[in-house]
């Protein structure tokens, strides 16, 4: 018996930005993300309503996927920021806060959406052009020949994640490791187009942070009593299987198989496996690696013939291992292994980190694969540390493409705001001068509000008119001013002794003292893109007229 249920009509929301509920949700999201921003940001505990695992974090890459909203309009903004984070790894919170406050400011200003969109577009292109210029006041050239700049860049990323709970020396140690790992992934003397290698992260819980280390080559989990083949002849030939060697018929997939009761499929597959093992041993292979499970009989056969066996490698380690050894993964056990599929391993040893026993595979010659072992006292902090290191690596890679950085600590934002204010309005179509000026004011306020979001302890943020940098005055007078002398600005390149004089743009040239490097650096590429993403997303959000939802 069938029953027809009438389809309920779609729900249409007119002008979503005029909807109080949506506005509240946007404000909540801005507060939520804004309170996570920066080195003194607050943490969020994420768990599900039935009491799942608790994740404590303040990084956008963990937070954004978790805060899915019931409102498609909010999700539109969230996903667009999330895409930026996946692509560039950094400045996700910046993009989110900037975008949300652009929307909020535009709403408050009461201007026509079209006018705001046009001015925002203009201002964004003004800012990006300015940032790309050589003489930009908030850009710093990175010296890739010295490690100092790279460490400073990595440190800004590491220190901006308070959930790692790192002390100062630990923070420096991790930053150095991140840079060392990054340098190991840059191939030394490859002619032609260079492709970067890979860093594999291994985490060990319970050891002090200072035990973290970087090793060239790969570390793979292995059994306690792994058999090591004798180091008689280096390099060792290696074979890598991506097919399961468990001896089952899993390759056949679903569906019904009809077999004769006398047929023992298990033993037939096993004999196939042993034949494979036989061939591999004849070919002189010393290391046998499988992404999945290896049948214990085959394992015993191989070890008794002096082969080191690694099973359950996992899909994430396949690519790095292929790069390291030059092996071609074998995807079937039903044909003989091609001689070209074999790879080579330069060194083989067992290393122990805390409770973990790992097999250390080294490359034959140069290789751009390295492993970073991250240690921390508890799992929550370790997880955040892993995310942070990944972010640092991403930022360092971006710096290779464009060797510059932006002043961190909110100084770039305030500087850009000052710059945008000073520019003569270029009148465009459909936007009057007054409208442009008011939209520009909202734009600058949004930029400044991002800078202000760095302060979480109730201190006041000020902008000096001379250099347009950001300064904070702590709320409790107890705060020892950080840095040298009587405090310094957000990025750490100016100290309080400077006198503030002019209020004109371009702000006083900082380049006269080139030796003063800012202490806090942001990734240039990531921030530039974040700026564009934020403005484009905000413009799109402002342009949405109807939200139509199918509620069936």
């Amino acid at each position, binding site marked *: 018996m069938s029953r027809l249920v009438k389809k309920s009509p779609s729900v249409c929301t007119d002008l979503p930005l005029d909807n109080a509920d949506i506005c509240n949700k946007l404000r*909540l999201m801005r507060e*939520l993300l804004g309170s996570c921003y920066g080195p*003194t940001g*607050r943490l*969020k*505990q*994420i*768990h*599900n*309503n*039935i*009491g799942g695992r*608790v994740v*404590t974090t303040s990084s956008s890459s963990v*937070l954004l996927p*978790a*805060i*899915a*909203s*019931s*409102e498609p309009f*909010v999700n539109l903004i969230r996903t667009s920021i999330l895409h930026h984070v996946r692509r560039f790894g950094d400045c996700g919170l910046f993009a989110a806060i900037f975008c949300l406050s652009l929307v909020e400011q535009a709403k408050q200003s009461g201007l026509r959406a079209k006018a705001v969109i046009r001015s925002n577009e203009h201002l964004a292109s003004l800012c990006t052009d300015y940032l790309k210029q050589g003489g930009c006041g908030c850009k710093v050239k990175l010296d890739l020949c010295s490690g100092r700049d790279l460490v400073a860049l990595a440190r800004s990323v590491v220190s901006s994640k308070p*959930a790692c*709970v790192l*002390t100062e020396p630990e923070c420096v140690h991790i930053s150095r490791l991140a840079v060392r790992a990054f340098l190991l992934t840059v191939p030394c003397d490859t002619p032609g187009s260079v492709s970067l290698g890979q860093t594999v992260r291994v985490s060990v*819980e319970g050891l002090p942070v200072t035990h973290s280390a970087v090793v060239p080559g790969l570390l793979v989990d292995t059994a*306690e*009593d792994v058999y090591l083949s004798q180091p008689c002849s280096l390099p060792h030939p290696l074979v890598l299987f991506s097919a*399961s060697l*468990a*001896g*089952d*018929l*899993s390759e056949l997939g679903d569906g*019904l*198989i*009809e*077999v*004769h*009761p*006398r047929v023992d*499929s298990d033993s037939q597959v096993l004999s196939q496996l042993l034949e494979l093992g036989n061939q591999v041993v004849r070919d002189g292979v010393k290391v046998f690696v499988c992404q999945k*499970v290896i*049948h*214990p*009989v085959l394992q*015993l056969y191989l070890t008794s013939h002096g082969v080191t066996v690694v099973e*359950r490698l996992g899909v994430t380690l396949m690519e790095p291992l292929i790069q390291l050894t030059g092996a071609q993964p074998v995807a079937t056990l039903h044909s003989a292994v091609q001689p070209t599929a074999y790879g080579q391993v330069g060194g083989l040893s067992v290393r122990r980190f805390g409770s973990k026993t790992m097999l250390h595979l080294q490359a034959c010659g140069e290789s751009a694969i390295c492993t970073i072992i991250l240690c921390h*006292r*508890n*799992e*929550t*902090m370790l997880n955040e540390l892993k995310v942070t290191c990944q972010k640092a690596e991403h930022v360092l890679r971006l710096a290779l493409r464009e060797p510059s950085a932006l002043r961190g600590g909110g100084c770039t934002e305030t500087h850009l705001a000052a710059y945008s204010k000073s520019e003569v309005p270029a009148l465009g179509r459909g936007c009057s001068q007054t409208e442009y000026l008011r939209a520009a004011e909202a734009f600058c306020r949004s930029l400044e509000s991002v800078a202000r979001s760095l302060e979480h*302890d109730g201190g006041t943020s000020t902008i000096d008119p001379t250099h347009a940098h950001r300064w904070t005055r702590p*709320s*409790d*007078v*107890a*705060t*020892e001013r950080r840095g040298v002398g009587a405090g310094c600005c957000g990025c750490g390149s100016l100290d309080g002794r400077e006198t503030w004089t002019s209020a004109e743009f371009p702000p006083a040239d900082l380049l006269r003292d080139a030796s003063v490097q800012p202490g806090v650096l942001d990734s240039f590429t990531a921030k530039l893109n974040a700026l564009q993403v934020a403005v484009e997303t905000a413009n799109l959000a402002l342009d949405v007229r109807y939200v139509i939802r199918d509620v069936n």
Partner: protein
Amino acid sequence: MLGSAVLNSRQHIGLQRVSALAETVRSSVGPNKKYKFIQDDTSGESVLVCSCFRIIESLEPTCAVGQLVLETVQAHHKVYRSGSGCLLLLAGAWSRAALDCLHRGISVTNIISFMSEGMDICLDVCKESTVLFEDLAVTGRRTAAPRGVEKTFTEAPQGSRHMQRATKSDDMTPNMSVRRKTKLSRHFCETTLHLDEPDVPGVSHAAEMLSHGCEGSMKLVVEAFQLQSKKNQELRNPMFDISKVMTCVLPGLPEGRACVLHGCVVLLSHEQVSVAHQIKERRLKVAFINGDLTHTYRHLGFKKPPGVQPVSERSVPSGSSKEDEWLEKVVEVFLSLEVNLILTTGLACESLIQTCCRHRILLVERVNSPALRLIANSSGALPVTYPTQLSEHCVGTGVQIFIWTDLSSYGRKPAAAVNISTGGGVGLVTAVITSCVDGKLQALEDQFWACAHRLHHALKDRVLLPGAGATEMLCIHHLQKAAERHSQADADRAQETKTGTAAGLHRGHVLQLMADGLIDYITTVTVNAGRFSAVEARTVVSRQLQNFHRDQIMAGKFSQLALEAEGDASADKTPAARIYDNLSVKQEAWRKALDLVFLVLQTDAEVITGTGRKGEDNLMLL
């Protein structure tokens, strides 16, 4: 859908929760523990717990902060097996300190930086007040002082210098005086090397000082250590390899029967015991199986194809079932290899056990897999997954079994505890823990492991800390001094300029609160020792502190505190019987406690995903 609840205000709920959780273990901190019943109202089940770790584990805190607390404690317990109470109590005390700071309007950033500073002070104090393990060991064994001791003397000044710096009165330093005595001892001058002496010098004595009220368990641990070190004659650098120590709990026997044996101990059923009697004390051929001994068992990762259907043109006469076929094959393998003993990590099917018994083959199920690996290694065997894989070179020899005790029970209960030993140098030892009270076994096992880990870490660190509150006292002293210094410096500055920041004042305040947390800890331990009430304990502690401030007495005097509290029995003990703590355990527990406080302190909101239902009014929905 997603909800978000704001935690943070001046009344930080998260910190209050940590503090509340910490209160649950207050009465179980310290060496004198009382048993507690934890009852589940919904299921009516109850459990008898003793240690702080078991309390918090059995309470199963469900809130987000509770989970974080549990995770931290579990991580600590996994590595150290002791110090969970210290971790929890301090986390609670420092959470209250942080709350107090928030009330006074000190910013979160500053609380964190000042508290980390305080932690650095404490860790420095720990580093400086360490005592070399050898020094303690010497006090125990003045007579037989083998080579290891001479090395101690060359190294000793280093240790004592730490002591002097920390205490400024070397004359009274116990280890110094003892050492002097040792030097003058004529035994020492006449010492010949007692290499046949199995005990590593003084370890048992030092272990006694680490027992923290579990003398019985520590005695077992020392026995285990001595059995193990008999095998490796590494006297200079003795190590206690706890990965080669197993436990076997046996209900129904008096606690006095607890002992330590070589190899591993397994419980056997009635019919197996008769086989065991027939083959005992002989050198046996043995096979090792990783996995179950049933015909359906397949190794881990093997997927059965979902849709296999047997088809045939005519019905096949099913004379014997698959299981019988398999059974026949397996027994044939065993018989052809002439094995007498089979150890498996998994289960075996009943019919196989029966058949094996008939053929005088002893099949032991559920052997701990590290133990299996160690015995296999020492007997030169290779563990395999399927019995059909067995061949001559997979089989080991030289394993012996001894009937440890006949439990002579009926029904399905195990009938005997059998000791499987290789007699060889693997160093695998098993502690048999017995008790008449079933519910107590868990606590006794925990105690054993706590003691084992303490000895292990003491030998690994090679240094110890004066215990019974002495180190904490020293830390409190240093924290309070630093707090005073900051407040004073700030007062001076304020007088001069009238605009001096309150930085020093705040810093002093935070350090003072941290010290108060430690005072709370010592007081709790003293109260739990049972002789003082809370008020009295507080008075005693503060009097001690005042004395300490006045004339900077040596750290040693403090250790009397908890001993005093332990009652009259300890009063007439020799001064050598003092209490010591592990350096690494204490440092890690403190640091983890502070980590926990920092994580919670910095958290201002809880994001709950998947809240579909209405009714949670205090949540903001996104």
